[in-house]
């Protein structure tokens, strides 16, 4: 059933770019989609690269270790600008750097030739539909949503560890603001207005946390998906030459989006581990 489907317009095969990742096969109740296949390849690539680096790590660096160390140093430099402290940068580094690498590889895997163009013809609703075997991992909301949830939840966990559960809880459900009123009202009568506002702001923060997940996941998904649609459209106009500048554009976009996502996660981590200031 499978075939090279590039530029093949035979019959009434539909070549629509779907918003969702198409299922390729099923393992029991689990649906394996083309984007999760790509994610597995990314995980495998990262595994190979990591094992390679691990084998090469020496006190006197050589070859790829130099490149990797340079990247790490640059990233720690960027992180220091956000966290304002090297020890905090080092604490968040493994998580945030993993976001960057995973998203970068997923984004770039989406641009590779063959991804999105090699596939099979499936029958859906009595119509022939082209289903690619691979789809960029981040061109699927499931992936970006999973990443955003992990990032935001991790920022809360770090926040609880850094500030303590009670203090952290009061950032959102500000019971302490109300408890403070009787104690401080003689000194500062305005507190009766200010602290309920503080409590209300805390409630808004909860919505803000949900918004963080939504903005992170949709920003990444939107950019990568739009890039894939753009490349497909350009290829549809003329497959030779015309998509080339857009491919370079997508290489840059892939890197920038990975950087934005990871730096935003870092910013959330930093914000949530800092005591609130008034």
């Amino acid at each position, binding site marked *: 059933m499978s075939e090279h489907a590039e530029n093949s317009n035979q019959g009434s095969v539909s070549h629509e770019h779907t918003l969702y990742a198409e299922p390729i096969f099923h393992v029991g109740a689990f649906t394996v989609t083309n984007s999760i296949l790509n994610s597995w390849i990314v995980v495998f690539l990262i595994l190979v690269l*990591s094992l390679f680096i691990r084998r090469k790590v020496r006190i006197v*660096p050589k070859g790829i270790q130099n490149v990797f160390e340079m990247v790490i140093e640059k990233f720690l430099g960027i992180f220091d600008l956000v966290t304002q402290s090297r020890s905090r940068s080092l604490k968040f580094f493994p998580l945030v750097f993993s976001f960057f690498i*995973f998203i970068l590889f997923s984004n770039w895997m989406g641009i590779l030739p063959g991804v999105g163009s090699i596939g099979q013809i499936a029958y859906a609703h009595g119509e022939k539909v082209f289903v690619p075997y691979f789809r960029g991992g981040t061109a699927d909301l499931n992936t970006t949503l999973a990443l955003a949830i992990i990032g935001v939840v991790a920022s809360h966990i770090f926040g609880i560890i850094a500030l303590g559960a009670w203090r952290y809880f009061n950032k959102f459900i500000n019971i302490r603001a109300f408890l403070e009123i009787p104690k401080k009202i003689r000194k500062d009568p305005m507190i009766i207005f200010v602290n309920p506002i503080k409590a209300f702001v805390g409630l808004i923060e909860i919505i803000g946390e949900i918004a963080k997940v939504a903005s992170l996941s949709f920003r990444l998904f939107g950019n990568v998906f739009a890039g894939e649609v753009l490349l497909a459209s350009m290829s549809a106009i003329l497959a030779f030459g015309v998509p080339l500048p857009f491919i370079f554009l997508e290489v840059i976009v892939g890197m920038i989006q990975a950087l934005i996502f990871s730096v935003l996660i870092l910013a959330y981590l930093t914000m949530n581990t800092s005591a609130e200031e008034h």
Partner: protein
Amino acid sequence: MESLIEMFHVDVKLLIAQMLNFAIVIAILYFFALKPILAVMRERTEKIEKSLQDAVAIEENMKKTEALCQHEFNEAKKAAALIMSQAGAEAEKKREKMLLRTKEEIGEIINEEKEKMRLEKAQVLKEIKASVTDLVISVTEKVIEKNLDSKDNKELIKSMIK
């Protein structure tokens, strides 16, 4: 919300699978790549810092050693000068002593020679006296042609000589 989930095919199983994927990525990156590299980088930084500190310490030590060397050298110089002056004094003393002894010896030799000469002179005088006596006797004999007996003769001569 329902339509969103429907539109993007959000599936809890896929979500969990992707979370798992990412968890694996974190674990792999952390344990296989980042941890060893960061450890090596830290170790290298520490080593370099330590070598720099060591270099300062070594330089300080060297300065100390140099100063010590200079000091020892000066001491040795002083000691040598002292020994030299002592040796000079000793030699002078010895020379004087030897000179003195030589002088004494020369004096002794001279005295001895003087004594010898004195004795010889006395001997010679005695001999000369004897021969002069004989000569005078014989001359007188010839002059007076008369031979006194030897006893008178001798007395006569003695009185003449004196």
